[in-house]
């Protein structure tokens, strides 16, 4: 059937895999955005820059400290998450009593600062990062590079762990309660401001983790985040930020759709997600998994 459409199965499967990988990044980033938005009512425009920072920290750890990929996978999210905590404490926390849009404007400014600094320091041509698990396996119908398989499997696992933590543990119950009624949860003796700070740190850490995962696939580039974050915003609008599972499903799904578009209509692959967003807004304005209010 695929040959009938003039597309060899190898190419189709290759693009599907690439789509799954992009979907993994969309899922990780929109997950972080959704968690942060749920608790803080702030849309974190810095998210893309923090994803980029994750990739850069991994590169720096290898370059300056000789710490390999596997170390960076743990360290980079912690380092970037820590900078996120500082940003939240020093800057974002001053805006909670104001309109949400100010949070958007502030984090947009921060994104500009971070991207500008990295561009000034490292140029915008991109830096290579060696693949930690080279090679792959021929599956008969396609060639599976080990690293790409690892990215999909690992991000899926991270997404599931995050989902489980939020939906099924006591900590997650506190988190969800604080999303609904922060004053009440605070009155029960939970330190909500600290919870908000840590949540922001974790959300940012997720973005950095995606950045580390992306480093060996794409070149490490100061502009890698700003281009991605706009697509992720569209993903978030399509999925609606109401549900954690929804963000994961939408992220992976749209990655696959984008990959398929690359096979059948390459010119449209850059815009397909935005078109889907427009259609979803016409049909179901609150998003696929959102609740109207």
């Amino acid at each position, binding site marked *: 059937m695929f040959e009938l459409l003039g597309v060899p199965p190898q190419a189709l499967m290759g693009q599907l895999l690439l789509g799954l990988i992009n979907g993994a990044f969309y899922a990780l980033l929109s997950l972080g955005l959704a968690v942060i938005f749920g608790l803080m009512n702030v849309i974190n425009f810095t998210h893309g820059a923090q994803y980029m920072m994750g990739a850069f920290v991994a590169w720096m750890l290898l370059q300056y400290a000789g710490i390999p990929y596997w170390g960076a996978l743990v360290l980079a999210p912690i380092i970037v998450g820590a900078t996120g905590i500082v940003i939240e404490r020093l800057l974002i926390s001053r805006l909670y009593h104001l*309109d949400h849009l100010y949070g958007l404007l502030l984090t947009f*400014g921060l994104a500009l*600062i971070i991207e500008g600094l990295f561009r000034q320091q490292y140029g915008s041509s991109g830096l290579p990062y060696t693949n930690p698990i080279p090679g792959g396996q021929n599956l008969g119908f396609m060639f599976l590079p080990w690293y790409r398989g690892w990215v999909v499997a690992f991000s899926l696992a991270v997404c599931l762990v995050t989902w489980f933590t939020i939906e099924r543990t006591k900590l997650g119950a506190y988190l969800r309660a604080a999303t609904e009624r922060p004053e009440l949860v605070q009155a029960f003796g939970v330190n909500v401001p600290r919870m908000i700070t840590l949540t922001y740190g974790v959300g940012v850490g997720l973005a950095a983790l995606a950045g580390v995962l992306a480093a060996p696939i794409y070149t490490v580039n100061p502009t890698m985040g700003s281009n991605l974050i706009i697509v992720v915003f569209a993903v978030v609008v399509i999925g609606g930020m109401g549900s954690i599972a929804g963000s994961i499903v939408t992220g992976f799904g749209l990655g696959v759709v984008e990959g398929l578009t690359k096979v059948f209509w390459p*010119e449209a692959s850059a815009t397909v997600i935005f078109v889907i967003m427009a259609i979803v807004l016409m049909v179901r304005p609150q998003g696929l998994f959102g609740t109207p209010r």
Partner: protein
Amino acid sequence: MTNRSILAASGRTSSGRTASGRPASGRNVELIVFAVLVAGLTVAPLMVYPILLMKVLCFALFACAFNLLIGYGGLLSFGHAMFFGFAAYVSGYTIKAWGFPTELGILAGAAVAAVLGLVAGSIAIRRQGIYFAMVTLALAQMVFFFCLQAPFTGGEDGIQAIPRRPIFGVIDISRDIVLFYVVLAIFAAGFLIIWRTIHSPFGQVLKAIRENEARAISLGYAVDRFKLMAFVLSATLSGLAGATKAVVFQLASLTDVTWQMSGEVVLMTLVGGMGTVFGPIVGAAVIVVMQNTFTGFGEWVLVAQGCIFVLTVLLFRRGIVGEIVALAQRRRGEEDAAPPPVAEPADKQPPSDRGGVRASAAAGPSEASAPVSS
């Protein structure tokens, strides 16, 4: 969570007396200030490079058009570059490839921006607040990719060497100084349209929607239609600004469609003062001059813009003009011992809840209707 007023939340105070009793004189003051501004600009080319002035004027019109949405409609569009940049392409292409006269090319740009605004607006107004910002940003990115791939835009090169044909066949705009006065006229016309809109009944309804959308709906206003009309008007005038800029620089390029450009116009309006009549003009001048000064410093422009964003949001949310107006009102409030004061200092506003919803519901019509009346 339906109504989110960025102005009410910024601590802007309101007073019934100002809104009901003073608008006429406030309007006159605004017109006088504008006349002085235009008069000053007519002699400005003697001292300042005309191209720089024209750039400021184009961006000032762009920011004023943007301000119509955020300042008076409470809608934060993060994708206004799509109108600005796409209209630039349209005017560049029609003038260069189709041989349109300059004035017709500019009008074509604005007209296409209006249509684009109608389409984008009818999609975007389905969501509010933060979602509205994200939707407009995504739609603008779609337009960006379209411009990157469509054959008529010239891809990375853009449309270059757009000819400057005489306006109406008689005004020779090949000289910068002549073109400057044409651009000044376009800017003045655009500004007066916006000014008239703000003070019209339509503008009043728009402000009512910004302050309390639920109440506006319950009063029987077709809220979505008002929002859409404001969006289209804003898009059209942004397009007018972009089309004019293409004629001035004889260039339409991808820069004008990027999300960075959308961010820049937000920054200009924020710095000058959202919801003030003259704020966007001041903001555009500040940012354009800053960019010009920093041209040799590479990416530091981006860093500087980011810093201005952060500082403005944290420290003076009213913007330059907004702060001046607030200061003047505070001083007047001190002089008038008799109650009720015209405007309380912002710090005495009751603290709003997390969303600023309560504050916006409590606030009446904004002071923005008569910003320079004092």
